[in-house]
Every structure is written in C-alpha cells, then in structure tokens.
C-alpha cells in the first residue's frame, strides 16, 4: 500500500506543471481559444512531442506504457491550466478504444498517427434518449453485402466536430436498451452521409450532434468484436472518467488556492475577507471537498483497468459522483467568495467554475453515476 509517486511520475508532474505555467496562462489560453479550431494545433504538436499523447498506451502500440496513475498525474496538472485541446476525445476516448479494441491493421492505420499528433479522433457512444448511458443505442449498423451501412444520430460527441475519425457505437442486433448487440465502428469524418452540427461548450471546447444517413463502411471498420462492443466502450469510458476526475481535482486545487489568495487580499469593513469566520469555514469546506474528490480520483485511477468490472465501476462511479458534487460546491463557492468579479468573464475563477460544471455533464453526471453505483452489488 503506497500513495507516493514514482520518480518518473514526479518528473511528468513537473513537466506538465511547467508547461501550464509557461505556455498556458489565462491570457495565453484566451489567445489559443481565439484560433479557428478553438484550440491550438501548435500546442497539440507540443503535446505529441512531449509524449503526452502516447502516455497511456502500451509500448507495443508505440506508447509510453503509462497506466491510469500516470494519466492522473498528467490530467491533474493540466486541470490547473484549463486546457482546451482535444486530449480527452482523441487520446483517452478514441485512442484508448482503438488500443483496446483494434487489431494490428487498425492500430497502424489510426492509432499510430493519433499518437504522433497527426490524427484527431472522437468517440460517439451516446444518444439523446440514452442521456448518460452508453447502453442505449438506436443507431443501426446493417450488413449490405460485405459492407456496413450505418444510420442514426449520436449526441454530444466531444470534439467530434474537428475529429478526422469518429468511433461510433451502433446496434448490430437487439433493441435499443439491450447490452448485447452493440458494435463499434471507425468512421472517417469525410464519409458520405455523415454530417455534423458543431456546437461550443461552456468551458471552451466543442462538440457535435452527429447524423449518419446510409454511411457505407468497409468490413475493416468494425473495431473489436461484433455485438460485444458495450464492454469495450464501458471500459474506455470508465478509464476516461477516472482521468477526468483527476482533471477536476486540478481545477479545484487551483480554485481553492485562488480563492484563499483573494480572501487574504480583499478588504471589506476595514479587514481582509479572510478575517470573517463564515468565509474561513467556506474555504475549509472547499479544501475538504477537493480532498474528498482527490481520494476517490486516486482510487479510480488505481482501479481503472481492474479486471473485475464491478470493482472498476464502483471505483469510477464513486469518484465521478464525488467529482461532480465537489466540483459544483467548490466552483459555486469560489464564485460566491469572489463576489461580483467572480461572475465576470475577466477572471479565471468563472472559467474554472465553467470547466467543473461541464465536467459533470460529460462521461456521466454525478446523478447517473450514483444510480450506477447504487445498482451494484454490495462490497465487502
């Protein structure tokens, strides 16, 4: 039992922290967001160069062989920077799905350029009626001769608008709610019949509603086993959710520190705000909520690739519940303690708040994960 970082992890942490400090200040971020894609292709190239895109992949696949704890370290540090690059969509969702489900040819075609920063990808695993549940799939994939034909609509596909490749879950058998009969397909974004309605997120990312109308795919588009795609998708979503919890912790740590600084500096009624006991306790609660979230993010990272599905789901759902609840509280209180300027677009506070708000809406909300957790058999 050990909760310390390895030397390598400490180096990774320092390098990401340094990057955020040097290249991702609040002002630099503004400039990045003003670029046409809403993020910086240069920064993306930097990520690739520093090996961050390759971090969570096996060495055999061209990765650095990192595990979820390494991802935790990276994401917590990036969380302080409020990065807008498509790391979650490309690396942790689509990339991991290719790594876990793809065959050698698929990896060579898509994963290799992805790790090198030459291919952006996304995972379209959700639909409107399913809300947060990847198990509800109405989109259908039918055999037409050798080929596949996909029809349907996927919702809220993170960075699906700028992805070169979208991994789409579709039903090859069964009715919309059945766990069996779901398969995963690699769909090039320029496929005929694929259309995307781009939208922005409140925290500076983009997403799309994806429509598939008679999209024709070759047999090699099937990623993983036919009809058994849900297990793969859930495993990928869980590992990504664990990473996202670490990102949330990074944002909470930053917000708590920024708020403490503000309380020390800002004076009202002749004394610093930090002198008011009610505000002190609010800050203490922010700290505790951050630590609660951190503890479960660590647990989620440690179990994110657990062989036992129940163990993995319990750990990830617990972490996501806490990240959602803590993120909401910490974000709201940081704004409240800043008073008026907390609500303006000028300060970073509001942007951390928006990031934390958006994170809860992605990869399953606190509500949804609580329900999943409660539906699990009891532990010990």
């Amino acid at each position, binding site marked *: 039992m050990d909760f310390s970082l390895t030397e390598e992890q400490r180096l990774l942490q320092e390098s990401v922290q340094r990057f955020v400090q040097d290249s991702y200040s609040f002002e630099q971020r503004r400039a990045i967001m003003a670029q046409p894609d809403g993020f910086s292709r240069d920064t993306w190239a930097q990520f690739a160069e520093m090996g961050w895109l390759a971090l969570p992949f096996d060495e055999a696949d061209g990765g650095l062989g990192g595990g979820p704890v390494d991802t935790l370290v990276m994401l917590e540090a990036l969380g302080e920077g409020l990065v807008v690059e498509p790391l979650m969509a490309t690396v942790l969702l689509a990339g991991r799905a290719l790594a876990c489900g793809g065959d050698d040819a698929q990896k060579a075609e898509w994963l290799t350029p992805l790790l090198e920063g030459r291919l952006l990808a996304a995972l379209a695993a*959700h639909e*409107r*009626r*399913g*809300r*947060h*549940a990847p198990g*509800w799939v109405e989109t259908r994939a039918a055999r037409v001769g050798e080929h596949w034909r996909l029809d349907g609509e996927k*919702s*809220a596909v993170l960075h699906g608008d700028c992805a070169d490749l979208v991994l789409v879950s579709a039903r090859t058998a069964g009715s*919309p*709610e059945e766990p069996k009969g779901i398969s995963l397909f690699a769909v090039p974004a320029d496929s005929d019949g694929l259309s995307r*309605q781009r*939208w*922005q*997120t*409140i*925290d500076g*990312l983009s*997403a799309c*509603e994806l429509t598939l109308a008679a999209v024709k795919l070759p047999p090699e588009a099937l990623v993983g086993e036919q009809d058994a795609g849900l297990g793969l998708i859930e495993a990928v979503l869980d590992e990504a959710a664990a990473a996202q919890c670490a990102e949330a912790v990074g944002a909470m740590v930053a917000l708590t520190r920024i708020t403490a600084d503000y309380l020390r500096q800002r004076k*009202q*009624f002749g004394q610093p705000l930090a002198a*008011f006991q*009610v*505000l002190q306790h609010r800050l203490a609660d922010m700290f505790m909520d951050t630590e609660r979230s951190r503890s479960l993010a660590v647990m989620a990272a440690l179990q994110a690739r657990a062989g036992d599905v129940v163990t993995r789901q319990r750990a990830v759902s617990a972490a996501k519940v806490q990240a959602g609840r803590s993120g*909401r509280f910490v974000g*709201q209180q940081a*704004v*409240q303690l800043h*008073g*008026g300027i*907390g*609500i*303006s*677009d*000028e300060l970073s506070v*509001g*942007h951390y*708040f*928006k990031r934390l*708000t*958006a994170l*809860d*809406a*992605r990869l399953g*909300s606190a*509500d949804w994960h609580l329900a999943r957790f409660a539906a699990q058999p009891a532990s010990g």
Partner: protein
Amino acid sequence: MDLQFSAEERAFQQDVREFLASELTPELKRAVSLTPTVFVEKDIADEWHARLNRRGWLAPLWPRQYGGAEWTPVQQFIYESEAARAGAPTTIPMGVRMVAPVIIRFGNEAQKAYYLPRILSGEDTWCQGYSEPGSGSDLASLKTRAEPDGEDYRVTGTKLWTTHAHYANRIFCLVRTSSEGRPQAGISFLLIDMDSPGISVTPIRSLSGDHEVNQVFFDSVRVPQANRVGDEGQGWTCAKFLLEHERGGVFSHRLMAMVQELRRLMVDTPEGESALIEDPRWRERLAALEVRVLSLEVTEMRVLSRLRAGDPPGAESSMLKIEWSELQQALTELAMDIAGPYAQFFEPGRPLYALAGHTLGDERLARIPPDYLNTRAATIFAGTNEIQRNIIARMVLGA
C-alpha cells in the same frame, strides 16, 4: 386568517387577467422564456413598459398625482402572481422603482416635474451607480467624489456592476461630497446625464457571455448641483430609504413559474422509453423545491399582510432575499441536471429569442446553462447572502 380575496380584489384579478390576455403577445412571452439575464433586453422592456403605461400600471406604487396606480400590497401580490403565471416580462426597476421613489420623497418640485413623466413615457432609461471596485458589501466606503465647481460638481471616479448602463441615458449615483466625519455622512445623491462629457462605459461580460452590466468611468464630469436630490450629505439617507422601500417583495410566483417550466422540461425529456417525469427521483427533487417555493409564497403573504397593517417587516426582508436567491439557484441547478449532457452546451448568440434555428432542436436548452451561470450572482448582489444572514442573526440575538 384566511386566503380569500375580497370582491374588489377578485375584480382587480380579473382586470389583470384581461390585460395580460390582450397585451402579452406570444413574441413577448417567448422573449421572456429565452432570457437568461436578470432583466429582459431594452427592446422587450420598452414595449412592455409602454403597454403597462397605457393601462396606467407602469408605476404601481407611485402616488396617483404623479401617474402612479397606488396599488395595495394585495393588488401587487395579485398582479405579480398573474404576470408570473402568464410569463410576462418584469419591469426594469432602475427608473420606476429605484430613482423615482427617491425623487418623489426627497426631490424638489422641478425634479419631480421633469423626471417622473419621462420615466413613464420611456424617454429616460436609468441606471444605478452605487457599487465601486473597492466597495462591495461595504457600500459606505465608496470613493467617487463630487467637488463643487461654481454651480456644478466635478465628478471623478468609477462605478461597477452598472446594469444597463449601455442602454441608459441617465444614471443616479451615490458620490462623496465630503470626507469628514462618518463615511456615510459625506455621501450625496446625484442625477447625471449619461451624455455628459467625461463619462465612458466599458462592458463587463458575465461568465455566460451576457452583457448586462458595465463599469462606468467619470473623468471630471460636470454635473449641475441642481441635479442633487436632497441636501448635500443626504445620499445615505436616500439609499437607506430606497432599501426600506423595497422591503417585502413578491418573488415566489416567478419561482413557481420556474417550477412549472422544469416540470414541462421533465415531461419533454426522454430517458430510454420513458421521460424523466415518470421517475419518482426526478419528481421528488422538483417537489422538494416546490415545497420551499410554497413556503416562500406564504412568507411573502405574511410580510405583505404585516406591511399592510403598518408593521415593519423586520428580518423577514433579509429572509426573502435569501430564499428567493437560493431557490432560484437551486432551480437552475436542477435544470442543468435535467439538461444532462447538454448542460455543457453554450450558445454564444444573443439575444436568444432573436436567433433562428437551434442546434439542439429544443430552444429551451440554450437558456439553461447561461441561466445557471448568471444566477450565481443572485446570492451576491443586493447585499450578499452572508450580509443578510448577519442581519438576521443580529435580530434573533436582539443585538
């Protein structure tokens, strides 16, 4: 105790319903339902004000001699209830409910004669210059100074969070005319023309991307001393009067309209084969808030009832502020959870009611995130909820 309205009150209720049925156009209703800011935009406000003014209801609390309606508290309650249920715009308060009562109470005849009709007609649009960068909850520490210069003042300083300053042609300000004695004692109340040389307005965008508030800069702005309301040094008295004047209040009906709106949203939000409204967990989350809104409705009625009897409302007015703001936040938070993955959706175009075509099909989803984000201000403005709890505690402790 009873809940019944008198025959006259019932007749008034009927009048209000008829007015709303004929004057509240579908366009106005839609604009209200797609407004994520505290107040509706100027075009909507102007149209609604004009319709209210034609009916003589724009200034419900002014004396009749100035064109007011002199409603009783129960009439206010009835109007607010019906207007909320119907989805009518709220009136913009800075003119009718803020500067006007001060002018009526402390202004001279010339000021009354000049300004009041222009508020009713819509010729003047007001904004409020109270807060400053260094003075948040501690208003009396304000620094914007007005120095005598012949028959004028020269006003220098800056005001923050000035709602609708980008629309207003006039601003009423608390300014420092003296730094002697208690900080409160050196404050005066000035009416300033926004066209005056030396005034500049910088927009402050909220974290939702909305532009509702501003910072206003005064660089040696010449303001006639005749534009001072009341005596020099009486500004704090004016401000306090306004605060007391605003006591009581009818917020619960708007909150109940939000409850109903969320219920419709839950009916229209599918989950698998079903809809959220079918799930007792969602229904109970809404019910828990509805219970609190019902409680607030009665508390408001109790306060109104006491006001009518001539009793001061006491710490209940702080309680109303806390209830209204925290319930509004809780309701927008529930809306976010209903929106699910679309709680992260951001529609940058404004105003929302002017946009054609909606990415997500359901245009209501475009309002939910900015509404949630903007509503965080509710517990900060008009006296933070921390300050309100200080006030209540003082009352309970009898200190």
